[in-house]
């Protein structure tokens, strides 16, 4: 038996610490290699950390909710691998490399590094061999060399960016990142074998079941599935919430990314079955007997719950704070009669569907936005305070605000002006999906020049969106609703889209915002104008 310490790996982008969201194993559990043992949350995503070896869990050294620096031991395994393997070794057995036992004597009274051979491993990724210490001179500080060992990087393969090619810690990290990307799908790539991603249970979605709904089991009601986690679209989760159903209890055979996936219909079906069963229970038990499940998962009345402000939530918070405190916001509201657009989209959606693309309003509105932006370049700008210049961006990169389980994310469609509606549609669909599944890469959320937030998809007419700084404007879309409007002196039902445009008043004045909105409304009300674009 050997003890094998496992350190929190750098799960992405040179981060220095991460939060242990939950442990998936307990002391004494038997684990197999690559089995997820913990979920950790970085500033961007929740990733699962796989076991590096087969063995049993001997010790768990970090608490759930604890922020742990990368490189700190979080769990210790007992492994069967004999041979007196030392603690903290990787699964890779040392000894195959050249000169394992050949100590090269430094001949002179001077000094040569002891060369070395076979290596055991301390790397974190799970399957890499412990890097050897190079034979020649290395121009890097001892701290950088140690970091290289920790990250499993052969320091000799690192290109130094310092004077004369000196290797810094940053160079080592960059190299580690490169090899991770080369070796396995990038951390963002989604299909990484060592760090699979999942949609987190998300704060606020747990413990939502009401006492009655979770009583379960009674008179022939469906058995709650009781999974640890479930993937679902936000709309589905909302329905589950409304119906008082724990989404983890909804039976399903569907899978996404290897995880159970639940659709809205299944939630409804389960909720109804539950209600029927409950009604039967209630009838049988009569009144009086509170079912014991009432308290399960629900905090006692009146007690505060403290939710850590970390990870994605904190990143969003910091970004919002910076924007709101930096850019004086003004929000301009108006509405567009999009009856024609609704009709046009209805026709186009059918065509799009034949081509396998789901066409929503968003890509069409995006087209209109880009057309308007071209005429009002200040809405597609950035304020460079250092050089005291307003940068009118040459690109039209549209950010699309997406609500995910973890919080707000803004994927960016690049070069929206150069893309057709269907291409925009398919790219947007893909990006939104990735954001929701948290497989989106950081660079897919960067470089935006203007952002659209479709809060109306959830509900609401007007809002005061916060600009996605350093952009200078953001357009909020309300829900498209039929409303009575006066056309040619008669009140008729019309489809109305409400618009909320927030601008950075340092760069854009209200009049400019209004003119831009007017032009946008013109396009939205007369979508055929977009043919000219």
């Amino acid at each position, binding site marked *: 038996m050997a003890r094998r310490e496992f350190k929190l790996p750098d799960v992405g982008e040179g981060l220095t610490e991460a939060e242990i969201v939950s442990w998936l194993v307990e002391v004494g559990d038997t684990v197999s290699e690559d089995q997820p043992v913990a979920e950790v949350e970085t500033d961007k995503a929740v990733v699962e950390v796989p076991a590096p070896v087969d063995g049993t869990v001997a010790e768990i050294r970090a608490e759930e909710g604890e922020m742990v620096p990368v490189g700190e031991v979080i769990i210790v395994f007992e492994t069967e691998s004999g041979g007196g393997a030392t603690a903290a070794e990787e699964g890779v057995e040392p000894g195959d490399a050249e000169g394992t036992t050949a100590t090269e004597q430094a001949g002179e009274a001077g000094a040569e590094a002891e060369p070395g051979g076979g290596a055991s491993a301390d790397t974190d990724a799970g399957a890499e061999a412990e890097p050897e210490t190079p034979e020649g001179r*290395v121009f890097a500080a001892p701290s950088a060399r140690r970091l290289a060992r920790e990250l499993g990087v052969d320091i000799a393969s690192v290109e130094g960016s310092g004077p004369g*090619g000196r290797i810094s810690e940053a160079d080592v990290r960059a190299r580690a990142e490169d090899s991770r990307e080369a070796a396995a799908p990038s951390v963002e790539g989604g299909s990484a074998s060592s760090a699979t991603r999942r949609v987190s249970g998300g704060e606020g979605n747990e413990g939502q079941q009401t006492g009655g709904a979770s009583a379960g089991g009674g008179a022939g009601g469906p058995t709650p599935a009781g999974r640890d986690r479930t993937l679902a679209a936000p709309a589905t989760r909302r329905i589950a919430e409304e119906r008082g159903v724990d989404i983890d209890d909804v039976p399903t055979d569907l899978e996404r990314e290897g995880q159970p996936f639940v659709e809205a219909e299944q939630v409804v079906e389960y909720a109804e079955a539950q209600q029927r069963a409950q009604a039967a229970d209630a009838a049988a038990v009569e009144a009086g007997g509170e079912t014991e499940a009432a308290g399960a998962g629900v905090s006692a009345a009146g007690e505060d719950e403290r939710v850590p402000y970390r990870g994605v939530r904190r990143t969003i918070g910091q970004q919002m704070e910076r924007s709101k405190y930096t850019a004086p916001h003004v929000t301009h509201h108006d509405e567009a009669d999009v009856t024609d657009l609704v009709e046009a989209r209805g026709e186009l959606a059918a065509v799009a569907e034949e081509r396998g693309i789901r066409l929503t309003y968003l890509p069409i509105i995006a087209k209109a936005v880009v057309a308007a932006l071209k005429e009002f370049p200040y809405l597609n700008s950035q304020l460079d305070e250092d050089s005291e210049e307003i940068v009118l961006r040459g690109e039209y990169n549209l950010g699309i605000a997406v609500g995910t389980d973890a919080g707000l994310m803004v994927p960016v469609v690049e070069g929206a002006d150069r893309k057709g509606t269907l291409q925009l549609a398919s790219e947007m669909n893909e990006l939104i999906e990735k954001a929701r599944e948290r497989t989106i890469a950081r660079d897919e959320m960067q470089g935006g020049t203007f952002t659209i937030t479709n809060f109306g998809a959830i509900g609401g007419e007007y809002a005061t969106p916060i600009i996605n700084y350093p952009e200078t404007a953001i357009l909020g879309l309300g829900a498209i609703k039929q409303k009575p409007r006066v056309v040619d002196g008669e009140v008729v039902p019309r489809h109305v889209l409400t618009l909320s445009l927030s601008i950075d008043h340092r760069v854009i004045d209200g009049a400019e915002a209004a003119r831009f909105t007017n032009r946008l409304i013109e396009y939205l009300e007369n979508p055929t104008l977009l043919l000219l674009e």
Partner: protein
Amino acid sequence: MVVGDIATGTDLLVVGAGPGGYVAAIRGAQLDLDVTLVEKDAYGGTCLNHGCIPSKALVTASSLVEDVREAEAMGIHADPAVDMKGMTSWKDEVVDQLTGGVEKLCKANGVNLVEGRAEFAGENKVRVAHGGEGQGSESVEFEHAIVSTGSRPITVPNFEFDGEYVLSSRDALALESVPERLVVVGAGYIGMELSTVFAKLGTDVTVVEMLDSALPGYEDDVARIVRERAEGIGVDFHFGEAASGWERSGDGITVRTEDEDGEVSEFGAEKALVAVGREPVTDTLNLEAAGIETDENGFVPTDDRARTNVEHVYAVGDVAGEPMLAHKAMKEGEVAAEHAAGEPAALDYQAVPAAVFTDPEIGTVGMTEREAEEAGYEPSVGQFPLQASGRALTVNERDGFVRVVADEPSGFLLGAQVVAPEASELVAELGLAIEMGATLEDVAATIHVHPTLSEAVMEAAANALGEAVHTLNR
């Protein structure tokens, strides 16, 4: 198992409490390992008890004698009397304080100290025989072991150490009177240091060296300064002669040497000091029982994690091979203990500095110009002579220099050679520069205190760049 054996278990067993062993033990304990340290003789090993420390104490004391005697140019006239017993007991106090400190540190860190001689009794077990007959023994089972048994002086045929006429360095450091005449066999660093000590104390020293120069292994211009200074204080060198035998004569002895052509010379002396090198102590350990291999010279080969061929057994210090230096042993001890505790430690140092405490001192680190060339670099070399250093003149020294070797295109420091008072200290800065991957410009652009010897380091780096102010740039 011997009847009556007590069996205990430990995470990390360390055999030998010299600089490699005690450092490993303390580091292991700091990393929460249960550590057992076995020592048969004295905490601190050769270095603290019979090597570095006592010899440096005598180097300092004897230099003081010499400096006072030679201070007439400064207007000081004195004829110091040396009470060798007094000097020895002062030296012993220093040693006691340090070895006591090591013991205390070990205890304070929770290291289990066991006195006795350890030998392996299996892959994961040693037997420790306690000192003296009938003192019993115990077995200790371990998960990891570190062999740090050090080295002992090599003997020359016909010159068995007897502690009276034929001395080892250890014996010489314990002398209670200053010998009148001493023959030193071997002009390596130990022979040179002790020759200097006794010459300064008034002994008539003759050095016999088989090779053709003092301090073989050091560059000629480095060794020459030290040899000439030694000659200046009365040391007589005979190169190319091998000590072949000795006999009693009168109150003392006569040492015979033979050169290549078979020509025999004789030197009368009170005692002979033999310092021709050191060999690893591996024969008492029963290494075979654990399957640990040694090479043809008795050293235990190790890898870059200080591991022997047996995965869970490490070897550190002299026993693991050249260079036999305490600070190398300490680093290896740290790495071995850290690795045993699961840390990602490795022996990836770029250079092991070395010092010779002669007069003046020698400090070296990294590559010489020639080694750099052989390693494929285009070396750029800068040198600063001590006679151009204000501080050197005010400490009444003018012989010596600081030399730096760097990679020409990148400016990275590759090595340095220092011959100067306190060269052992001056070399530290250069060691740091080499480990950090500093360039000539980095060192040359760092402000150094004036007036100090360390300015010579800065100036030597500047000289390599053609920018030295206080010497002509070549």
